[in-house]
């Protein structure tokens, strides 16, 4: 087990850093706030990423990717974060849909869908959760009914990030009545009649999520991923990728901790023993998180994520929350910003605090992750 950068990682880190320094200034900053405008900005960025060969980093080379190990992916995510790179608008396309298509799709799926994701031409969203099926995803009710050479989809989905700008969705719908066995995984065209999207405003004032209403929306047979009724198995693979993204992705704990220490110094509270004890505790936990991530990456190599990825999320969530809350405490009333206010600068800790609360719920709640660890890592009875 080795926790620092390997020679390959160090070299890759230096290469990415140099590239980012040269490339980021060429973008038409600032990054727009509105999603539609940000899409234009994102496409410019993604084409640069693609030209440089960093698109689809985790994807095998035969599909236009780089076949990078999870270690290199984590390095890339860290460097993007460090340099303040643009929002990865198509994270679902590249991270979840693309990976699942590569693993389970036909040759036709791969040639149709993968390249437009890499080039940033087609944006993807995820239609999994429903109002009545959150933690209990297998309880989903959205119906797929046979119609000619395809299916008609009717139901309601929720917590759909970026549904407004998505061209395609990974969709779970019920083709028969039995819980896990009756679910089919579709690659679903969003731009059609029968798809109604309603933004859901959050307590932050943002409308990151949407409700999506499907009424007799059509999806042809060739857009079924895997076999009819085999959707649950594929969905678990997708959710595994989601946990990896959450545990190793843009939420860069090291960076946040560095900023926290800056804040402690600036606030002149670094002499306070209570403050020092808390910083030391958080620093220690961040180190454990990093080492744990490195260990998981060493063990996994380039394989698909297993239930162990739940441990990373379980450890990360309270850590992120504690860092944000401590920073808010140190920053006093100035750090607490009103809804709708700029969540950058002083307000960034408020944003992180909200994100941390959300992280304990999104992608499988803390309680669901604990069940996964108990049942699938420890082998305890269900």
């Amino acid at each position, binding site marked *: 087990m080795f926790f620092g950068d390997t020679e390959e990682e160090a070299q890759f880190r230096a290469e990415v850093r140099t590239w980012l320094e040269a490339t980021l200034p060429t973008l038409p900053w600032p990054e727009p706030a509105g999603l539609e405008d940000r899409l234009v900005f994102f496409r410019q960025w993604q084409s640069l990423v693609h030209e440089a060969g960093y698109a689809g980093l985790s994807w095998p080379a035969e599909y236009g990717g780089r076949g990078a190990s999870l270690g290199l992916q984590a390095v890339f995510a860290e460097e993007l974060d460090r340099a303040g790179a643009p929002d990865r608008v198509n994270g679902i396309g590249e991270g979840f849909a693309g990976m699942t298509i590569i693993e389970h799709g036909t040759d036709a799926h791969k040639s149709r869908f993968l390249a437009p994701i890499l080039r940033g031409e087609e944006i993807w969203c995820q239609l999994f*959760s429903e109002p*009545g*099926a*959150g*933690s*209990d995803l297998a*309880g989903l009710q959205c119906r797929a009914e046979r119609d000619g050479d395809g299916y008609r989809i009717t139901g309601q989905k*929720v*917590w759909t990030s970026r549904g407004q700008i998505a061209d395609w969705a990974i969709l779970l719908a019920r083709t028969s009545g039995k819980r896990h066995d009756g679910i089919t995984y579709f690659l679903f065209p969003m731009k059609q009649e029968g798809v109604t999207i309603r933004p*859901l*405003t*959050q*307590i932050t*004032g943002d409308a990151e*999520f949407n409700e999506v209403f499907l009424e007799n929306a059509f999806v042809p047979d060739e857009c079924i991923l895997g076999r009819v009724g085999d959707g649950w198995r594929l969905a678990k693979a997708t959710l595994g990728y989601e946990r990896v993204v959450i545990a190793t992705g843009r939420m860069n704990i090291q960076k946040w901790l560095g900023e926290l220490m800056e804040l402690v110094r600036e606030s002149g509270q670094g002499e306070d023993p*209570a403050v020092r004890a808390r910083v030391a505790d958080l620093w220690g936990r961040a180190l454990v998180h990093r080492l744990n991530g490195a260990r998981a990456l060493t063990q996994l190599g380039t394989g698909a994520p297993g239930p162990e990825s739940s441990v990373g999320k379980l450890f990360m969530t309270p850590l992120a*929350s504690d860092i944000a*809350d401590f920073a*808010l*405490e140190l920053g*006093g*009333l100035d750090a*607490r*910003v*009103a*809804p709708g206010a700029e969540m950058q600068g002083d307000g960034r800790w*408020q944003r992180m*605090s909200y994100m941390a*609360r*959300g992280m*304990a*719920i*999104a992608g499988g*709640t*803390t*309680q669901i992750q*604990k069940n996964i660890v108990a049942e699938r890592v420890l082998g305890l009875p269900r």
Partner: protein
Amino acid sequence: MSDHRHLLLDTVGRMLSECCGPDVVGAAEGSWPADLWRVVEAAGLPLAAVDEAAGGGGATVADALTVARLAASYAAPLPLGETGLLAGHLLTTAGLAVPSGPLAAAWTGVEVRLDGGRCVLSGRADRLPWGRVASRIAVLAEGADGLHVCSVEPSAGTVEVGSNVAGEPRDSVVFHGVEIAAGDHARAAAEVTRAALDGRGALLRAAQIAGAITAATRLTVIYAGERQQFGRPIAKFQAVGQQLALLAAEEAAANAAVELALAALDAGRDGVDEIAAAKVRAGEAAGSAAEIAHQVHGAIGFTREHRLHHLTRRLWAWRDEYGSEAIWARRLGERALTAGGNATWTMITDTSRSAAPVASGATT
């Protein structure tokens, strides 16, 4: 609890459940709920604890705080406590008139210069709750000869609007040499100090936190009993049931800490230690309770259309207002150290004792 207080709370509860539903609270964000204010003002709630001679209700400070706690359980978007317990208190103790309408109070950042017969106010009053709509601001200002109380309209200064995490107005008012009319200023009463006002503000927020946690707990228990996943209510899962138990414990702790401080006030003591403990404990509870309430509600609790955030965002905001846990814990610690080792046991266990000596560093 006295019968009188019971009756008062009963009336207030009925009034607020009628007039202060989630729609009213939601709509009030960024605007002033004038209709709601008229209802509570007509019932005499804002000035409940102000002397009857000054137009108030003559209730005790503890009565008014329990009203504020109850109003917070409805997330009532009004400066109820600020008007009577802070501004009204400043004005009446100085013998100044208490006007109708919402009032704001400021006790730091402003100075007064007395020059012949003129009284001139300068400085910055930071983050005044509902400063923009206050009919008057009661300012405790430092002068060459001690503290003075001035009653001034916000429009006499420059108002910089702002708000807290919950979207409640927190406006700063800058006074650039504002001349105060003769009947609108007076020497502050001897018992009126910045430290005492800090304590009142802190206990007000602690009481509100306790009220909001109580309501959030109720919402969360109901939701966990109704929300079905895996074919049963999520409350049936032990993991969720245990979260609810922890939430109930936070609710109990916050309320007990506040009750202890109220009892000290009822007994005629200043309750300095109890207030510090109440703000620290209620503040801790605010963080844990909001976290559990959100976790149990899942994603739906994070949406604007759900009412949970009316309570939880207030918890996050109130936790830091009028002194964070760190500030009050330090004050309490300094007092315990000053009182000495032998006094510590009494300080913790004897709730009928007279007030501990005020440490020199405790008023900062």
